[in-house]
């Protein structure tokens, strides 16, 4: 007989940590992006994805609103907006 023992990554969906956001979230302006990928690299959650210029985006299911992507963007193309403000669907 076995109890809870191991977990395979494919069976793990993760906690919906987007619900942690209370203050602000990142808004990708998609204007001056040079696709340097620093936002993707620096995100502690790994929830930024993208490849082409002005085409990077955040998975808000997991984004905790820490603001590191906005801080690192060399083109200031990411701004932190109030979490209360309406989110535009892309």
């Amino acid at each position, binding site marked *: 007989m076995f109890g809870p023992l191991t*977990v395979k990554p494919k069976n793990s969906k993760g906690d919906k940590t987007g619900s942690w956001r209370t203050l602000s979230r990142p808004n990708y302006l998609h204007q001056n992006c040079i696709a340097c990928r620093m936002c993707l690299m620096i*995100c502690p959650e790994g929830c930024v994805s993208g490849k082409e210029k002005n085409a990077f985006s955040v998975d808000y299911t997991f984004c905790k609103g*820490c*603001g*590191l992507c*906005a801080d690192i963007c060399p083109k200031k193309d990411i701004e932190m907006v109030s979490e209360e403000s309406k989110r535009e669907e892309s």
Partner: protein
Amino acid sequence: MENNPLFKSGHTACAGCGQAVAARLVIEAAGANTIIANSTGCLEVFSTKYPETAWGVPWIHSLFENSAAVASGIEAALIYLGKKDTTNVIAQGGDGSTGDIGLQAISGMLERGHDILYVCYDNEAYMNTGVQRSGLTPFDTNTTTSPVGALSSGNLRPKKPVPEIFAAHGIPYVATASAGFPQDLTRKVKKAISIKGPKYIQVHVPCPLGWRHESNQMLPVARMAVETGLYPLFEYEFGVITARKQIMPKPVEEYLKMQGRFKHLLNNPGEIKKVQDVADNNIKKYNLKLEAQG
């Protein structure tokens, strides 16, 4: 990287956690053909709470002080199975599990020459249990077991020179890195993985909760530690320094004022001078000062 993430979203690290950034960069640099042995600590707890796991690679947690020994066993088994040449082995943990309770096991692993990369995520205290001081807590830091009071300005001992201790073992590669310099960290991990034998990388990782700074300040704080000379970035190969990041040194006060754990020093020039001495000694010892261009 996105299609098959090796460190997935949905873990429960604090927002803006430097260790989460570094851990993701390390495994992405090492690649999918990697097995990780992880010590008890923040990283282990926030990434593997049953029934969730953030890890897309084979991963094992045993105890607090034995990840280096567990990794040694994994490496030995891989050699026995004929798979070591195609599989990387990483042992990782925080500063407490590395420099204090796990020092012996790592020393043994290095001495035996296992082909393993050990990564230490240095947030300079036992963060997971509530910000208690470790051997790597810097001088004059306020922690819960080295608290500031009438009789004390915080942790009164110098930071344990763990990279030098491991470099003294004569291993092929020892490096310090910082979550504030992510590309440099990635480069160092890739370089280490390409070397056969024992390797050590110590990554400075800000902790918004333990260091008392805003979640979005991880990068400036980490960079300032390097730019003051308080956290030198260097590489040792076989016990000899072969590279260092040179800086135009900034006064340590620039770093101290960014974090609540040092706020007791700000009106204390005598103590600030002592911290400046630590930085100045590093700058001299590692030849960190960028010479002015003529």
